[in-house]
């Protein structure tokens, strides 16, 4: 193993009996690595390939299809904050919210605040439309997010 630690390696191997093919563990493995290291470096891609009996190019092919995963040159901050930009949220002010957060964090969409705490992204519908505008903090929703609530959220994530 070039990159992946023992604990993660075991967690990946533990999933193998669930599926009739090793390749099916690709997405879970990519998630485990990115959750922990905030990116999936090339060496981790090669490790995953080795664990799943795949060519590194196969793992990379899957990884890059889902724009969700990031390489080491593009590492995520501690928290990933997604602002939904789809219709229900746009109708209820997500453009204002995105602008507000960009200015507050001093980033453009996709960027990470200088303190490394928050990466700001936009997302297509995150399935919380009854609380538009909605954001996703890593994988959990916050609904009806006003600019003031966004400020509080940012303060909490920076603490």
């Amino acid at each position, binding site marked *: 193993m070039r990159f992946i630690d023992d604990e993660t390696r075991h967690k990946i191997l533990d999933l193998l009996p*669930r*599926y*009739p*093919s090793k*390749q*099916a*563990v*690709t*997405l*879970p493995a*990519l*998630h485990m690595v990115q959750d922990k290291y905030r990116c999936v470096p090339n060496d981790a891609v090669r490790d995953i390939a080795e664990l*799943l009996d795949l060519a590194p190019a196969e793992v990379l*092919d*899957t990884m890059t*299809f*889902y*724009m*969700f*995963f990031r390489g080491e040159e593009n590492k995520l901050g501690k928290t990933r904050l*997604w602002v939904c*930009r*789809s*219709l*229900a949220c*746009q*109708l*209820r002010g997500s*453009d204002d919210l*995105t*602008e507000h957060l*960009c*200015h507050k964090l001093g980033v*453009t*969409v*996709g*960027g990470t605040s200088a303190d490394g705490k928050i990466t700001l992204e*936009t*997302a*297509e*519908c*995150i*399935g*919380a*439309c*009854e*609380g*538009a505008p909605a954001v*996703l903090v*890593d*994988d*959990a*929703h916050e609904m009806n997010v006003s600019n003031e609530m966004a400020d509080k959220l940012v303060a909490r994530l920076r603490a």
Partner: protein
Amino acid sequence: MADNQLTLLARVDKPGSHTLASYRADGGYRAFEKAIKEMQPTQVIDTVKASGLRGRGGAGFPCGVKWTFLPKDHPGPIYICINADESEPCTFNNRVLMEKDPHQVLEGAMLAAFATRASTVYYYIRYEYGPAYRATQAAIDELYAAGLLGKNILGTNFSLNIYTHRGAGAYICGEETGLIESLEGKRAWPRIKPPFPAIEGAFRKPTIVNNVETLACVTHIIGKGADWFKSMGVPPDPANPRDAGSYGPKLYNLSGHVNKPGTYEIPLGITARRLIDEYGGGVWKERKAKAVVPGGLSMGFMTESELDTPLDFNGPGKVGCLGLGTAAVTVVDDQTSMVDVLYNVCRFYAHESCGQCTPCREGTGWMFKIIDRIRRGEGRLEDLDLLAEVGNRIGIMPGTTICGLADGAGWPVKNAIKKFRPEFEEYIRSGKKGRALQVAAAH
């Protein structure tokens, strides 16, 4: 609000509704126990068929009929995939069920597995649903601990495993064969059909893909009977020989410019106007609706004068929409520009096309470029016909693509140009410019 008995949402406001103890105290898993101890798999299928249940994931295919497409006497394994990708914009009812009453969905999946002789269920959950995923995983753990999953469940010879599998943020993973490819660890490129998944699905084995809400309905159909289910909804329209009827309760997703957005359980067939006025508290700020999405963006738009359309499987088609879709109703008020709305819609499909079919990849890309140009004040009147033409040419209906994403991308464009043309023309003539975000987007 209209009086109506809740079934799917009956438990969601109870404290601890997500736990096995609470679910069982309310009679949970009795239908499953009855089925595996007293029923034959074919009886379960026949009951679901008799109920008229149609899939809630968007296509509305009769659920019991789909189950019968599995090969007879197959040696196995047979798989069930629960489709919890729920990415059709403005749709969120699966999330509510999964967070608040995960056992209700799991019981339906277990019944489906028993009926189809499946040995493994893969529960494909979009990554964005963290709390729903954790509630579901905790519920599955409880089931193993209680002996309701695993080998020889409750002393019968029925064995079953359920595994959760998290997605990674791509709309196309909701298309059933895209989901299967994604589950297999590949890019989520939908497959050419036939073969349909029931013949050759996950890991090349017979597979049934069902939506979360569909499976929640199965739980109650086995528990309360097909007649109970059929007592709600709308019988087939005699004028449409292809309509299989719209029975049972439905979780409508209401969002946008309404006073009370939310998930509402109502028998199929309520009109959009009643849904908005009686459940949603009317259009916000005392305004009027300009356009209403009947069932997720892919279904197109209704105008204010079309709001008395019943939201059953057959209704939206009568006013030129693609269908009921996910029953996600989004209200756009009369102060909103349809140019902004269509820009948002086209951006979505250009972003989410998986890129496999040229007409879809290029078509969604060009539709977005054209509406973007119009919105920036640089449009020409001919652009409107061009948009509609692209919209007409991409999809499985015109026969140019592998999956229905492209039909869904074209439909709102065609509807918007047809139903709101004067507004688009006026916008182009006036040289107006839409708002540009004061930030540079990375992608």
